[in-house]
């Protein structure tokens, strides 16, 4: 394959308008998942759960692979896997150190199970690959409605617990003293996270979930410390990455995930650079009163 045909495989905008109509559902799905990922991601950062997201996605992958093997609904399988993993982490991992070791233990186990189920599966190879790398191109209207409905429920729960969850994430000791149910919120958030991971896996696949749930929020936090701005930017970045990735991927023969992850990564790099420049200039919002010499 020469350079031209590689480039042709990656970027190809022939018959773009006609293709665009065909993938409308995918674009909507991408936008919904971007919105969800951006919202959940800010709490993943505040609660230092990046590693947990990875662990949950591997078990979600195992669940999906098992569903594929037995002929059940793949989305349902991945949902079961990720919620089970999230609950396990929420109940068992109270202390951060403990949590990381538990994730380290269940992650390879989940991935191993997934590979076992996939090797036993006799169906189309594209289905197998799709679990790891995502397959948003073929979202039909029923799937889109289910996705939108689930995402709406998750977002509603997240908004309902927003303030106390924020309090408990940043300042658990004081939150507990003020009567915030810190333990319960931790478990509820893990369920929210589990469902979000399972939904995101459909776009970017089990291996690349972090690009939706971590990278946009991490990028936002490089450029702002304001809680509202951080959430807005995180959502904007995530939606840009998913929708932008789908639009770029349309003509090529490559899965969508590399486009999404690359966009997401580039946004992070730019935000990081902006953050460093600001830090180097010593700008942090402090009001400095300069006394004038007479």
């Amino acid at each position, binding site marked *: 394959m020469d350079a031209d045909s590689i480039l042709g495989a990656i970027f190809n905008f022939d018959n773009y308008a006609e293709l665009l109509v065909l993938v409308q559902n995918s674009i909507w799905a991408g936008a919904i998942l971007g919105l969800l990922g951006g919202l959940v991601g*800010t709490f993943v*950062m*505040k609660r230092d759960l990046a590693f947990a997201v990875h662990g949950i996605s591997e078990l979600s992958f195992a669940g999906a692979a098992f569903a594929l093997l037995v002929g059940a609904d793949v989305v349902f399988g991945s949902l079961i896997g990720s919620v089970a993993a999230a609950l396990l982490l929420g109940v068992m991992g109270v202390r951060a150190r403990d949590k990381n070791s538990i994730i380290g233990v269940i992650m390879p186990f989940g991935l191993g199970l997934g590979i076992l189920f996939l090797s036993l599966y006799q169906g189309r190879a594209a289905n197998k690959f799709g679990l790891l790398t995502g397959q948003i191109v073929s979202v039909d209207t029923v799937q889109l409605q289910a996705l939108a409905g689930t995402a709406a429920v998750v977002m509603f729960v997240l*908004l*309902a*617990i*927003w*303030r*106390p969850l*924020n*309090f408990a994430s*940043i*300042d658990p*000791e*004081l*939150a*507990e*003293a*003020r*009567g*915030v149910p810190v333990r319960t919120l931790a478990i509820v958030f893990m369920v929210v996270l589990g469902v979000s991971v399972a939904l995101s896996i459909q776009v970017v696949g089990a291996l690349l979930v972090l690009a939706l749930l971590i990278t946009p929020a991490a990028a936002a*936090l490089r450029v702002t*410390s*304001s*809680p509202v701005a*951080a959430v807005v930017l995180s959502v904007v970045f995530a939606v840009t990455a998913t929708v932008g990735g789908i639009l770029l991927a349309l003509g090529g023969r490559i899965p969508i995930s590399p486009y999404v992850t690359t966009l997401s990564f580039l946004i992070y790099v730019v935000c990081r650079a902006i953050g460093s420049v600001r830090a180097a200039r010593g700008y*942090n*919002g*402090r*009001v*400095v*009163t300069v006394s004038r010499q007479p």
Partner: protein
Amino acid sequence: MKSVVSLRGACLKFGQRTLWEDLDLDIRPGEFFAVLGPNGSGKTSFLKVLLGLQKLHSGQAMLGGRPVERGSSLIGYIPQQKSFPPDTPMRARDLVALGVDGHRWGVRLSSGKTNRKVDQLLEMVGASDYAKVPVGQLSGGEQQRLRVAQALATDPQVLLCDEPLLSLDLHHQQAVSALINKQSHEHNSAVVFVTHEINPIIDYVDRVLYLAGGRFRVGAPEEVMTTEVLSDLYGSHVEVIRANGRIVVVGLPDATTHHHHEAETMAGEVA
């Protein structure tokens, strides 16, 4: 005057170790009440009881005439100074806002009222200049001023402070303790101030609860902080020296070995 905090026959035990028992205590509004004692004597547990986070083994703890409960709005709480990581996604004013409405459900729909309250609290503790600085980039003293602002958000009748001056330099120790004293005077709040070092607050303290060796003594600082009382509490000779209005305690038994020893003798007595 009616007491705002009251304990009756209060006893706290962890396993077989008694931290304190038969504690009867009334703290009045506007009183500055210090809780002193070595590590592991149950100072922090005393606060946890008032916060409703720790159950008494026996006895009663009342706050504002009702049994203590978790999340009471009568209480303002200043936790031990612990620095936020440098990249904590929160500015000074957001930390204070947590104290105003952080415990409520849902999202903050109208920010105007909260913002005004936060501005007022920041002004009160002299933190307006760094209102928009990320908390992780503030000094320990600045963070602790924000903690005071946060605790004052509900205009509490009781201010519970857990070693709020720990790891602060002298200048900030004075500033933070003066702020706390101001609240007690101007708003008639009772202050329960847990500390292992009385000197930074010696000018404000009305009464002292000294916990040591499973026993306690309550009284004015000049009654409690004496060679006789402390020697009696510790069960070994301790010298209390006063100089320039400061109090120096010399010859304190080492806290950790002291407690291992104590736990052993107690186990021995039970067996």
